[in-house]
């Protein structure tokens, strides 16, 4: 047992492992950057940086590689064991120990961000309000009933529960609170509803003269628009078929159990503990060209009866109730002076939001201590020579 532990410590505390891991991280960053040209940021981030293993294709040659997630986990262990536990601890190594602790905090913040954060956006025209933000990439199905007082009761199904309903597979969604089951089929990660013409046949169902046409996945994953077929199956076996599409203007309405139900495929939504209203969006262009020099959003943050004005600009996000709202973009692209513009605020809920800053302060402090001690030693030696 002792031998095993010693072996573990020797391997995981070695400087050679640190160098190998850092080189691998550099390689993954390089390969991932190149892959973004063809596969877009989102796909590459999942494949190269959030994975434990991946297969990189150099032409037709498959090369198995560790994913950045695994490399960073190993680096964390390597730093914790080699840089903290096994390093000699005295005044001479204090700075290095502190710097290593800072790097560990930095890595930890990355893990917290990856596993415990939500991010998305709020897109608003002037005078519009929102009390939720939505994901750029993930989808959900919401089954809503009208409670009659301006509120909706939503039953929400995450993407994992229906995204495999492709080919021959279907996904049945049910709840004791629903008087029906929803059968999802022909899920398409990128699709377009298309009217069925008389001159061609399609391999998928046609509902109300419309079918869902699958499209190749776009490199920019946020431009993919998911779609699916649904059948609402009531307890007496009555079926109502419909098409869901991620960019529809209105949800599918079905009547079941004597009530109307709205079924919607939409980007995953996250509730905000406040409402935000865009009061004014300001875009200042560079002289004589239609390229913005700066843009900002004057918003009202509404909590209950209270409302307060806030300006969100590119370098001044709003931090409120654990959320950070950044000025991200605007649209529509190519708008002319006088056109109605919308503002897109990127929203992040990250419990480790401040950790990178603290990590950098700790690392800087460690390096200052270490190099100050080195400098003092050099000065002393020179003075004594």
């Amino acid at each position, binding site marked *: 047992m002792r031998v095993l532990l010693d072996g573990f410590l020797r391997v995981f505390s070695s400087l050679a492992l640190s160098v190998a891991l850092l080189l691998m991280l550099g390689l993954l960053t390089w390969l991932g950057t190149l892959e973004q040209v063809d596969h877009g940021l989102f796909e590459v981030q999942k494949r190269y940086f959030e994975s434990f293993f991946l297969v990189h294709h150099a032409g037709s040659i498959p090369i198995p590689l560790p994913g950045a997630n695994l490399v960073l986990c190993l680096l964390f262990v390597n730093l914790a064991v080699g840089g903290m536990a096994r390093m000699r601890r005295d005044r001479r190594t204090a700075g290095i120990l502190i710097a290593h602790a800072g790097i560990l905090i930095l890595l930890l913040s990355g893990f917290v961000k990856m596993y415990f954060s939500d991010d998305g956006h709020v897109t608003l025209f002037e005078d519009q309000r929102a009390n939720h933000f939505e994901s750029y990439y993930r989808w959900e199905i919401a089954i809503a009933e009208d409670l009659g007082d301006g509120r*909706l009761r939503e039953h929400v199904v995450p993407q994992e529960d229906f995204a495999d309903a492709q080919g021959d597979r279907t996904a049945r969604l049910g709840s004791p609170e629903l008087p029906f089951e929803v059968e999802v089929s022909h899920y398409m990660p990128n699709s377009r509803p298309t009217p069925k013409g008389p001159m061609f046949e399609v391999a998928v169902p046609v509902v109300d003269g419309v079918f869902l046409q699958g499209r190749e996945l776009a490199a920019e994953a946020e431009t993919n628009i998911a779609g699916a077929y649904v059948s609402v199956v009531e307890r007496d076996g009555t079926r109502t078929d419909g098409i869901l599409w991620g960019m529809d203007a209105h949800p599918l309405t079905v009547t079941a159990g004597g009530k109307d139900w709205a079924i919607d495929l939409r980007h995953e939504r996250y509730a905000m503990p406040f409402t935000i209203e865009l009061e004014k969006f300001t875009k200042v262009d560079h002289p004589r060209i239609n390229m913005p020099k700066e843009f900002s959003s004057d918003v009202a943050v509404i909590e209950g009866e209270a409302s307060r004005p806030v300006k969100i600009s590119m370098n001044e996000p709003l931090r409120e109730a654990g959320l950070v709202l950044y000025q991200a973009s605007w649209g529509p692209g190519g708008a*002319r002076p006088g056109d109605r513009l919308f503002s897109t605020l990127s929203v992040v809920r990250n419990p480790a939001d401040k950790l990178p800053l603290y990590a950098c302060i700790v690392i800087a402090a460690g390096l200052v201590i270490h190099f100050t001690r080195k400098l003092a030693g050099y000065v002393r030696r020179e003075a004594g020579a």
Partner: protein
Amino acid sequence: MAVLVWTLVGVGCGSRESRLRTVETARVVTPVDGGFRWHATSEERFGLRGPGPAQVAELAYSVPDGWLQVAPTAMRAANFLVGGDPETECYVTLLAGDGGGALANANRWRGQVGASPLSSADYDALPRVAMLGGEGSIVEAAGTFTSGERKIDEALLIGAVRLLPDRAVFVKLIGPRAKVEPAREDFLAFCRSLERRG
């Protein structure tokens, strides 16, 4: 053991797999964005339109018979399926300024079907169509169309480029030659019908 056998039989027969997933998340929400419309039709939900007069933000036009207007996308201000064929598309793209240049865009189109680029003199000699208060240049190229993972063998591309003082208007018809060739006159009529609003 019986479960295993039946599972293997089910998989072997290619039966439609279906398992019930319980919807676990329920919440009450108060929409503050105006909500949505109940009982909307498919046309209203998906933004589908048939032939006839139509408009997008700053253009008005007449949709030829047999064309179906489908939902716009980020780069397509107006988007049509020609003859109901999902492979044959016509769409209008509006870009600020000169949109990167008429010749550059014409050559980008030609590159998509593997055709050689035009010189400035070639571009100036292209046929024209009356559109948007002036003349647009008609670019045409045939070959194998590739864009992303999309590929059409024996494709025909017909495009119209019209530069306005503050705007570049691109109209592109692309699809199999057998479908695009008969739609040529409709395409030109569509270009002639374009009008600037506001």
